[in-house]
């Protein structure tokens, strides 16, 4: 192996790479602008949309209740709801978003309350529709408050304290540091995104340097030069690897910036109202990057090998599109709730890196797992590079017609 020759190929491929517009998009623009756009843009949009929906006074319909005048009067007094007259097609009106919810008061409701009989008040809404849920929630809150008042009155009538119904209180409290909470929330997402962008960054150069070279007719030109095929593959591979890493680095920088902006604007709040400060410390950033290294290596070698079988850029894209799913599925699996790193999962490429990134970002470092994942991915990557070398030796692949 002649590293000088591979370096000459690398420098030439780098020059061509930076002059390619597609490279600029896939390697620089996507990671740099996708995250701020996704994180800040979508979060801000979501906050605006939810705020707007909360400000709206939902239109609600009352079904029945003619014999329960006190309850109806209490509902109508509410400023947070707009009561609309009854219509027989109330279900359609909910589905068509003309009204947000409906409440059905059972016949003889107030009489049943007096006699101590239990009745069920039904709230109808459009599941999955945010404004309808808000309407239904406001109705439910009112009815719960109304029920509590009835209970208090009954207890008072019998001279019993309110605490008779709740002899003790239950409260859940988080003890994990805020970084770990936010890490557990966003860690899998970050690992997944770095993995996907490592692949995206490698994909276009991998196609361009193999199938693209065949399509442009330059493969025969380079094969007629004295460079050995191994050095040629090495030079090309290093460029694809660089592109993959550049994308990964830019994506980590971009993510760090995006989360910093989000932290300042308080757009990220946990369900408990606590701000999720994602603290991507230097150690976690470096660790994620180190774990992404062998994976980027693996992607670069595999994508190059597959793309080499194609005769044209378009054909290579059709080969590599299914590869995207092969990579996305294990990456997505790591996001699923309950999927934790085990010694067996530590041997599954992509999934292992995604899971370990999740742990690293939440501040958990299981060094034995990290070493196992790093080593196993390195072995897969070395095997993939060996395969790339072998494929470049095959005339039937290089001169496929």
């Amino acid at each position, binding site marked *: 192996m002649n590293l000088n*020759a591979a370096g000459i190929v690398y420098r030439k491929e780098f020059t061509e790479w930076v*002059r390619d517009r597609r490279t600029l998009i896939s390697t620089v623009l996507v990671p740099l602008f996708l995250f701020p756009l996704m994180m800040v843009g979508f979060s801000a949009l979501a906050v605006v949309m939810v705020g707007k929906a909360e400000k709206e006074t939902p239109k609600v319909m009352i079904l029945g209740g003619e014999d329960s005048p006190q309850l109806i009067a209490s509902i109508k007094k509410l400023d947070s709801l707009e009561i609309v007259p009854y219509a027989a097609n109330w279900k359609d009106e909910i589905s068509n978003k003309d009204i947000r919810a409906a409440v059905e008061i059972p016949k003889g409701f107030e009489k049943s309350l007096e006699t101590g009989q239990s009745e069920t008040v039904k709230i109808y809404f459009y599941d999955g529709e945010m404004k309808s849920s808000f309407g239904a929630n406001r109705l439910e809150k009112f009815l719960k408050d109304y029920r509590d008042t009835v209970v208090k009155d009954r207890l008072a009538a019998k001279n019993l304290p309110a605490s008779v119904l709740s002899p003790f209180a239950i409260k859940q409290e988080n003890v994990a540091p805020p970084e770990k909470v936010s890490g557990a929330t966003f860690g899998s997402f970050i690992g997944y995104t770095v993995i996907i962008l490592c692949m995206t960054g490698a994909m276009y150069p991998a196609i361009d340097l193999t199938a693209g070279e065949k399509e442009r007719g*330059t493969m*025969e030109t380079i094969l007629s*030069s004295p460079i050995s095929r191994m050095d040629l593959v090495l030079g090309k591979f290093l460029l694809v690897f660089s592109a993959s890493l550049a994308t990964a680095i830019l994506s980590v920088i971009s993510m760090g910036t995006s989360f910093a902006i989000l932290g300042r604007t308080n757009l990220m709040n946990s369900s408990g109202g606590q701000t999720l400060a994602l603290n991507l410390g230097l150690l976690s950033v470096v660790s994620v990057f180190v774990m992404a290294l062998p994976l980027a290596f693996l992607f670069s070698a595999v994508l190059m090998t597959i793309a080499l079988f194609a005769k044209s850029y378009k054909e290579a894209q059709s080969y590599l599109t299914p590869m995207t799913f092969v990579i996305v599925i294990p990456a997505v699996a790591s996001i699923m709730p309950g999927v934790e790193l085990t010694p067996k999962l530590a041997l599954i490429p992509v999934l292992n890196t995604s899971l370990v990134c999740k742990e690293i970002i939440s501040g958990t470092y299981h060094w034995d797992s990290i070493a196992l994942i790093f080593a196993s991915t390195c072995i897969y990557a070395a095997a993939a590079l060996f395969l790339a070398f072998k494929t470049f030796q095959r*005339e039937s692949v290089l001169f496929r017609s």
Partner: protein
Amino acid sequence: MIEARGLSKRFQDKKRGEIRAVDGVSFRCEPGRIYGLLGANGAGKTTTLRILATILEPTDGTAVVCGYDVVEQPEKVRANVGFLSTATALYPRLTAQELVEYFGRLNGLDEATLKKRVDDIFSRLDMNGFRDRRCDKLSTGMKQKTSIARTLVHDPPVMIFDEPTLGLDIMTARTITTFIRECRDRGKTVIFSTHIMSEVEKLCDVIGIIHDGNLLTEGTLAQLRERHAEQDLEEIFVKVVGTVQSKAEA
């Protein structure tokens, strides 16, 4: 000097089975002479020349180029060969100069020698007007000149041309044929393939007629005329190939 010894190349085709693209071809090309490999499309010309340039490996037989075996020392062979064909395109995002320098470096030239060599070639081929222009912005003629510069940058003693004028206009084709003559005049060993009879008549010192992977006959134009009792090269070609086809059909 090129010496092909029983070169054979077989390919496996899913539909047609085994294909003998080249079948036991032997010939010899001397320095300062042009060897023309004449054959129809699919006769085995490109495969033969690709083997000599070590882009393909022979299934059987071998060839020696400048004293190096194409199977045993392919990299040394390539360092002594300039290979030009219509399939050897240029890198579109490199400038003409960058491209020539790239191949000079791959051929192991040091920076001082490379600069001198590039300046000399660009002046000789009148390429200074477009040396900094990207290859995808060059005209066909400029591209051909850049390809020639690429093959010359390491000053190889052997030149291999595979149908170099295919699809080119008259003026660009003329640039190529002039260049081939210059190579011979500089004492290089030249082999080139074509199916254009006039090119062979004008350029070649020795002619080999190849058909179905077999070298049917070879010699100077005068020797072929005498051997086949025909004056016109096209008639000689038809006679030689026709005889083989008749035998095969019988």
